[in-house]
């Protein structure tokens, strides 16, 4: 993902009067992949040095953010960055040359920027919504916030030890024996020769199993095409990068088999 950069000024929001006041200072918004956390983004608004205003430095978690035009503002192109989890809102107005007559009309360049931002903040499996949010309409505000889903950033969050253990526990003796047989290439000799649920639980508790788990998570999280390679490796129908999409692909492959 490349960096998104465009000119924008800050809009001050007064809690008491509920009034928005655009500040005249020039500034730039930069959105780039976070250096600290893969798959997150840094959102930075930098004022021109002479303004005396402070930078906004925000961390964006895809799925937790909406970026929408404030349609009630007819005198300029104002956008609201909203954090869905906390409700915090940040307002900015676009400063690149706009339409002379209809002041709130988005230029082609604006629309491209908005599209790019939507691509970043939208989780890949919400493609329908992505198109909808490209051209905001007045009724959309409420609808959009419900449609966002949070990301899953660790396979362990979906499949912690307890979930795996329960799966093994609930297998009948027959099913368990078949499971061991189906996976015999990936199991140590002692478990193959004497398969017990207890022994299998010990394996899942071991650092080696957990490392394989963490390793897969880390590769899927990178969003650099490794999701595509992994989908191929496991013979899945590729659904997109990231853990959510990988799980969806696994789910789908199961259904097809049925």
């Amino acid at each position, binding site marked *: 993902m490349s960096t998104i950069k465009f000119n924008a000024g800050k809009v001050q929001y007064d809690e008491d009067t509920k009034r928005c006041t655009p500040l005249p200072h020039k500034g730039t918004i930069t959105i780039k992949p976070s*250096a600290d956390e893969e798959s997150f983004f840094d959102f930075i608004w930098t004022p021109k040095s002479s303004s005396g205003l402070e930078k906004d430095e925000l961390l964006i*978690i895809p799925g*937790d953010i909406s970026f929408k035009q404030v349609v009630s503002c007819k005198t300029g192109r104002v956008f609201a960055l909203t954090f869905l*989890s906390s409700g915090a809102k940040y307002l900015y107005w676009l400063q690149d040359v706009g339409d002379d007559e209809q002041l709130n009309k988005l230029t082609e360049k604006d629309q491209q920027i908005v599209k790019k931002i939507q691509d970043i903040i939208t989780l890949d499996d919400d493609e329908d919504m992505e198109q909808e949010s490209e051209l905001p309409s007045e009724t959309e505000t409420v609808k959009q916030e419900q449609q966002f*889903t*949070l*990301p*899953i*950033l*660790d*396979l362990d*969050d*979906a*499949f912690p030890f307890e*979930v*795996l253990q329960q*799966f093994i526990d*609930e297998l009948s003796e027959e099913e368990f024996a078949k*499971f061991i047989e*189906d*996976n015999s*290439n*990936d*199991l*140590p*000799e*002692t478990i193959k020769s004497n398969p017990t649920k207890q022994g299998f639980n010990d*394996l899942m508790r*071991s*650092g*080696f*199993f*957990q*490392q*394989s*788990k*963490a*390793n*897969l998570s*880390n*590769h899927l999280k*990178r969003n*650099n095409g*490794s999701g595509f390679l*992994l989908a191929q*490796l*496991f013979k899945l129908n590729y659904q997109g990068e990231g853990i*959510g999409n990988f*799980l969806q692909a*696994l*789910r789908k*492959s*199961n259904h097809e088999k*049925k």
Partner: protein
Amino acid sequence: MSSGWNTIDSDAGLFTRLIEKLGVKNIQFEDLYSIDSESIAQLSPVYGVIFLFKYSKIDRQIAKNGNAPITGEYDLSYQENDIFFGNQTIQNACGTQAVINILLNQEIDLGEELSNFKSFVGGFDGEMIGETISNSDLIRSVHNSFSTPNLIVDEDPNPPPEDSDDKNDGLFHFIGYIHKNGFIYELDGLKNYPIKHDECKDMDDFITKIPQVLMKRIAKYGNELRFSCLVITNDKLNQAKDLGDEEMKYQELNKRKIWDKEIELRQHDYTNLFVNMIKGISSKLDDQQWEALLDKARERTKAKFK
């Protein structure tokens, strides 16, 4: 996340089995849980100590700027001083190389293969010895028989950020400490020469002084806490048998059972197995239950970043 540490829990067992396979007699590795003379003395005889740490930014910077020792000083005449030293030429074998550096400085029964190796490289300098180690079929095949296969090989063309090794995914480095010729020596395959520390007259003196040497080193890393130490000692099972100590014999046998189990676990990659388990779980759930499981996962992810 502690994924980097998990695999090295069993290093004492792994190294012991590894050198047994190389033919070395009557040597055992023991984890050292507390760096103090009393704990080390309990394990005596002590042939050396392996210090395992996160290779960090500090080490990288020093290596770039002349590679001077972090503590202690280089012994340029190590060859005359009869110090065996091989530079590290293969990244993945750093543990094995550190072990060889320590063992080949000892008056112990190295077995036929390593004795031959030692006489073959007699007179070579560190770099040549390092090369010879990396070219040794025996050492390589023994080393590889203990390693973990990797289903997913990382071919990410983007170099990791400069400080990536300070987080979770960095490299661990093994260095050895021994006493020889009246000094404590540090043998670090990534350094140019062996490094001389405090004077040291015998094994007892080594046991007394090595904790300070290690603590001085650790202090250089500030808040970094990912260290671990192994002591190289005699085969405790043999010792128990010789002493007729049944209790100790039982403990040592038990220890070996755990080692071998861990070594066996280590020899597989479990990614496939895990993916098959997810498939299995998915096949047991209807769409609503599956969504509920994902929702729970999202909540857990979210909670971590609050």
